[in-house]
């Protein structure tokens, strides 16, 4: 943790909060520094997602700041523990802190929903690398994030049908059993996946909360239904535990999952059981989408990139572009984002529609694990 950033922020924040009277930085003044924030889980059960995304953001900013730009960009880290309850405490602070021009995140949909009222009121723009819940960009939903919310990945509404299609590719008469982990992300994706399956294909569902250790009950249902495709819509670590137990109990069918499972963590956990696993994701890992950058990333950060690195770097790049174009206010940032047309670091198109969804994000890639690597095969339409 960078102490300078933190103490600098503390001073800035105290200044900003003085009797709520805050003068936004006059556009004419010489701005030497711009602050953006990352919001996601830094502590708590899901801290790994936050660590991966923070590292990606740090990587992108380090590249930028090392190039000696006229205006440097600071990163403030807001830990919401991936939980709505904590987001409720930190979001008002971020909203009130006028130094923060934009947010990378929040990482999770639940925390996003809790934060939204504050960011809407403060018109603080946000672009999430990983919040894929459909309601966030659904005009009819109370969770609608307009005008401040944007996201790079496509929603579960796109991912679900692709997952349904990709999962059954090996089976002539597929029998699909769907398992979710009771998180907002997984239940949403499971529902869209189930909806997209052809009639008679779905044979059952179970929800295994993410602290489940023993999947024997789920496995018994998989076996007794004669399932030949298991779809797990949760995150990679539990996915690895589940597939290991399935294989140990002699399950021979296919295993498929969504973007929560995409990443080296799954391969590490599932080992040889991962072989042949079918994955879809609205993104590609940095190592696949941009191997050159991944190599540089490893050199700079000292470790391989993690989840949602492609998205996070791309988001920071939007903010960098905005700063380069002279943006110094939140409203300026919001206009810039809405008018932005560019590419992700993986080379896909990146621009936002009115609801905050990524116009270029609809493409869902299908992957198969081969030889201990997650290999992208094709776009699943």
């Amino acid at each position, binding site marked *: 943790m960078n102490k300078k950033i933190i103490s600098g922020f503390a001073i800035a*924040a*105290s200044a900003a909060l003085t009797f709520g009277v805050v003068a936004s930085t006059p556009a004419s003044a010489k701005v030497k520094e711009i602050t953006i924030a990352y919001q996601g889980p830094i502590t708590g059960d899901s801290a790994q997602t936050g660590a991966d995304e923070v590292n990606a953001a740090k990587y992108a900013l380090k590249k930028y700041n090392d190039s000696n730009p006229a205006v440097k960009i600071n990163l403030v880290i*807001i830990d919401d523990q991936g939980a709505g309850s904590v987001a*409720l405490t930190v979001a008002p*602070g971020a909203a009130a802190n006028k130094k923060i021009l934009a947010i990378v995140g929040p990482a999770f949909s639940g925390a996003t929903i809790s934060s939204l009222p504050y960011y809407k009121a403060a018109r603080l723009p946000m672009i999430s690398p990983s919040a894929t819940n459909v309601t966030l960009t659904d005009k009819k939903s109370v969770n609608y994030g307009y005008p401040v919310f944007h996201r790079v990945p496509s929603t579960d509404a796109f991912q679900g049908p692709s997952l349904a299609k990709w999962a059954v590719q090996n089976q002539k008469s597929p029998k699909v059993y769907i398992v979710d982990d009771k998180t907002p992300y997984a239940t*949403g994706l499971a529902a869209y996946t189930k909806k997209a399956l052809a009639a008679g294909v779905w044979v059952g569902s179970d929800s295994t909360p993410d602290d489940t250790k023993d999947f024997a009950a789920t496995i018994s249902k998989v076996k007794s239904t004669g399932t030949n495709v298991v779809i797990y819509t949760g995150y990679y670590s539990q996915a690895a535990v589940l597939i290991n137990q399935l294989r140990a109990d002699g399950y021979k069918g296919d295993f498929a999952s969504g973007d929560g499972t995409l990443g080296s963590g799954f391969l590490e956990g599932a080992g040889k059981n991962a072989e042949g696993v079918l994955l879809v994701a609205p993104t590609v890992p940095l190592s696949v989408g941009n191997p050159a950058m991944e190599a540089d990333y490893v050199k700079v950060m000292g470790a391989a990139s993690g989840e949602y690195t492609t998205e996070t770097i791309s988001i920071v790049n939007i903010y960098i572009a905005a700063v380069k174009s002279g943006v110094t206010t939140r409203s300026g940032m919001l206009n810039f984002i809405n008018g932005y047309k560019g590419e992700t670091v993986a080379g896909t198109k990146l621009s936002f529609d009115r609801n905050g969804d990524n116009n270029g994000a609809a493409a869902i890639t299908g992957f198969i694990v081969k030889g201990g690597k997650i290999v992208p095969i094709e776009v699943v339409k």
Partner: protein
Amino acid sequence: MINLRDKGAEFWERSNRPVRVLTVFAIMAVVAALPYAGNTFLQTPVAAFDAVLVYPMGMFILMALGLNVVVGKSGMLDLGYVAFFAVGAYTMAILGTRTGLNTWEIMPIGIAAAMFAGVLLAIPTLRLRGDYLAIVTLGFGEIVRVSALNSEAIGGALGIAGVPFPPGLGFEYQLLDQKYFFWTILVMILLVIWVIRRLTVRRPGRAWESIRQDEDAAELMGVSTYKYKIWAFVFGAAIGGGAGVFYASRSMVIAPDNFTLNTSILILACVVFGGMGNIWGVIVGAAILGYLPDRFRFLSDARLLLFGLVLVVFMNLRPEGILPRKKREKAIVKKGSGA
């Protein structure tokens, strides 16, 4: 170590009425001015100080006061207190989004619902002894949370969003400046303190106190222990429910993960940390434990570690809490006139 409680009590007894009134008003003024103290050393990094004052601090104080009636006053170990908070919050969220009722109209309904949940839990379980009660209440808390999580009709894992704000009472509640919320919760806290003080010096307070100290002896002295234990439980539940209603309305969004066992344990820690059975101690304990994690948010990674250390070290230094239970030799009832 200095006994702060006795020092305070001594001061109180020495003072005459005007001084007392003045003291109360001075303290109230300082507390009420807290939302303006955001730029002082109190400043919480990342989180906004005025928001921290409302949640966790204000909410924790309110809930700790309620739990204190159960744990501190009556001696029943309740590890599932968050269940009542959740019942209140869900009542607010469901009625607030589906009917035209506003927060103040839902408040009594939410409190009643929490009290009903309290009775439901109390009747079969209060015959159990201390530690069994702990695990059963813990289980109840989990049952409530998991049931909410698994019920898509009330939002499932996503919870309920768009819970209406409380309507203003001559002022408008604001999202980005939470001082009105703080003042409202301050009024709620004062109300609860007033009620608890009344109960403490009267028959119910004596009944609870006797149950805590020696349940068998209390019953043989004619205290209807079962009835008073249920009352303690239901009274605590009512406060938790009221806090929940306000929390849901202020947060606008609630989800099952706001109501985990951790919250129950944290509230219990507030009660014990401050001094079980002493409302002033409980308030101080809850304020500190609500505030510290946000104050030390800049420690980021080591924040929870520090929190754990504080609990261990402090409990070892002051096992009876910051402001321990009454130790001085003075009846809290008025001296008899007919003596």
